[in-house]
């Protein structure tokens, strides 16, 4: 069983790395969707074979939301904003990949210092969770397009979710419901924001929004 879990977790880490290095938005959204589905599968694998109905419903919810609904919303936003690729990120794709890769040992080191709540789980769970959080932050910080930033938030939330499972186990339902809501609102707001930014400014480059700050320089 552990083998399966570890396989899934490694794939999750790979999707993180992929997101940091891809420039076509379409692919990015697909990878994020894959990550959402992987997340659901990890939850199943962690709790099998005695998985409760409650958990199953939750997993289904995750897969439907993160694997289908969010990508659909994001594709729609992409079409409306007429953007296809991330251009000229603040940190180039090569550097992003490098930093993303370096984040992996950092996450491992950090997790080795953290007191583990459930030592029975696979040792990879917390590092991968931390890596997803770091990768999400990297995406938010280094990209220009609002859509990529939404993706960054999604990845970060995935990491927080994994972290939640690792720390509180069965009770993570509470954590998770909160994060799902959070993400949903995030996507919703960002979807509207992207639409409105695009309509008002004819682009969705968030760096050019600096004209809106309240202290003229």
């Amino acid at each position, binding site marked *: 069983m552990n083998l399966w879990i570890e396989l899934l977790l490694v794939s999750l880490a790979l999707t993180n790395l992929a997101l940091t290095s891809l420039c076509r938005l379409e692919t990015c959204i697909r990878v994020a969707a894959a990550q959402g589905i992987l997340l659901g599968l990890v939850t199943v694998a962690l709790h099998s074979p005695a998985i409760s109905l409650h958990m199953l419903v939750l997993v289904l919810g995750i897969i439907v939301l993160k694997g289908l609904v969010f990508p659909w919303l994001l594709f729609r936003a992409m079409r409306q904003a007429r953007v296809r690729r991330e251009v000229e990120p603040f940190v180039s794709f090569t550097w992003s990949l490098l930093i993303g890769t370096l984040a992996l040992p950092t996450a491992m080191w950090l997790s080795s210092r953290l007191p583990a709540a459930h030592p029975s789980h696979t040792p990879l769970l917390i590092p991968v969770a931390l890596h997803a959080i770091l990768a999400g*932050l990297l995406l*938010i910080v280094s990209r220009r397009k609002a859509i990529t930033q939404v993706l960054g938030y999604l990845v970060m939330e995935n990491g927080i979710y994994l972290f939640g499972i690792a720390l509180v186990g069965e009770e993570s339902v509470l954590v998770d419901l909160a994060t799902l809501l959070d993400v949903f609102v995030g996507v919703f707001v960002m979807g509207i924001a992207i639409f409105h930014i695009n309509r008002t400014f004819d682009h969705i480059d968030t760096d050019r929004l600096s004209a809106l*700050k309240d*202290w003229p320089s």
Partner: protein
Amino acid sequence: MIGLLLAIGLLIISGIGAMIASARPRIATMIGVGGTMLGGLLGIIPAIQVLSGHAIAPIRLPWSVPYGGFYVHLDGLSAFFLIPMLGVPALAALYGSRYLSVSDGRRRLGTHWFYFNLLTACMALVLIARNGVLFLMAWEVMSLASFFLVTFDDEKEHVRQAGWTYLVAMHLGTAFLFVLFILLGKQSNSLDFDHLGSAVGMIPANAGLLFVLAIVGFGTKAGFLPMHVWLPEAHPAAPSHVSAVMSGVMIKTGIYGLLRTLTLLGPPAAWWGWLLIGIGLCSGVLGVLFALAQHDLKRLLAYHSVENIGIIALGLGVGVLGMSLPSTPLMVLGFAGGLLHVVNHALFKSLLFLGAGSVMHATGTGEIDHLGGLMKRMPWTAVTFLIGAIAISGLPPFNGFVSEFLIYVGGFEGVSASHISPMIAGLIVLGGLALIGGLAAACFTKAFGIIFLGEPRSAHPAQAHESPWAMRLPMLALASGCVLISLFAPLVFTWMEPVLVITTGLRPDQLNETLVGKVELLNYVVILGVVFMAVALILLLLRHRLLSRRQVTHTVTWDCGYARPSPRMQYTASSFVQPLTDLFAALIRTRHSLDTPSGLFPRHASLTTNTPDIWREHFYQTAFKAIVWFLARFRWLQHGHVQLYVLYIAITLLVLLVFKVG
């Protein structure tokens, strides 16, 4: 207790109901005002029960907030404050239902009533909260709700400015309260008021520090000088019934908080009393002086709030000094005078603000110099305003005199004591109160005389009309409250026993000895008051009788022999008080801009006087400018790149994580 909680619930629910119904202003007003009045009535019943000697059991419910707990209790002190804090908003709401109806449709009245009821509910909650977290929460919501009430006319620039001033002042004050409660709870590791008391007493220096924190934190709400700057901004900006509630009762939550803290801190040091007397004297004298120099009616009334809070502080100062000596008469008289003045001020100040609102409603202006001659046009408003004016000046036979009289007697007790310190304190209190009372009388002679007597000075008051009954009734109720308290002063004084037991820490039997003697004194006051009122009534009847068979003609005021009298020949507000403002020019720094007449046939001449708040101008603006200058050094951090903002957060979190686990 359940009844009171139900009343608070009713207030909040009716507020929400009003907000939901905000598409239909008439229904929203009905729900909101009905809720305030019904909730107020429901909530006053348990308070009266407690004051008449029935103890009510506290309620304690678990709450998942750290250090928090839903722990409420209604003791004598809370009940005493609760009656005006629920009664005045109920009357003000009735008044407001008509006062705001002119703005039907233009604004969302539903939200206004929501915040009004929320403010009332939170004031009640502040009074009964017995847990630090619950208290601060109610306190903060109270400030926020009143902020939204102040900014009702938010399309006006000066109203928005006033709102910001108010919000900043409230938050600075609350910051001190946070420190106060954290320090209080540090040793006992609990924020329930029961445990707070035991922990401090040990080290006098600590208790002193906590007392100063309470003075600053609660004093900002109450309007002690120099934390009073928000009052003359916020009260004129708010709708009149809101000013009435804020100035009449909301600022008293500051006094309540201070008294509650005093009961937690244990035996006070003498300098606490001196500090309160000093603050009281400064607030009282400077408050009334600034009021004298104002041209705007509501700004004038706002400065009078500072003055009256000063009188309350004087009373409390005498009481605290009495506790530190210890001297029972000083204690009882000081606290009783201060506390009674809280209720009295709630009555006459809200009455005056409602009167001011009536004037503004009828004439459309609050500029004193544009008004005049309203007594003939608005007799009800004029008479009730006059009663409020006499009461606030501390003149017999109305209630303001009774509470000031108690503080006076406390001052005389101090002077006749054998120690030197109460003697000096007594002298200061007597001199201060006399000066404040005299200046207040001068100020209200000006306000009443210029506004209601004489002839209209502009087109505004010329077509004025009397306010509708919904606005007159609350004013009449408050005015009769002023009369009733003075008529039943001895009775009210004995009702205060459970309150005084809490504030002084004396046993009821010790208290009674002192009370009995003072009740006798108050009896004389009442008899004199009754005689005075009877004489006035007889003279009125006599006048009526003498005039009844003759022809009565009316003519313009100031018609004494001039060929062509004009309203411009009357006194103006500034000319009336000029001797006094000149006398105290060093303190209030009135600015004159004079355009002197020149030539043999001068065409044009003008004089403008302006009295800005010196504390606001010289102290706060300088301080805030310095802070802005300092913070502007860090402007480069704000560049508008969202990505970098997130990077700041990410780096901070990462560094913290590494620091914690590494």
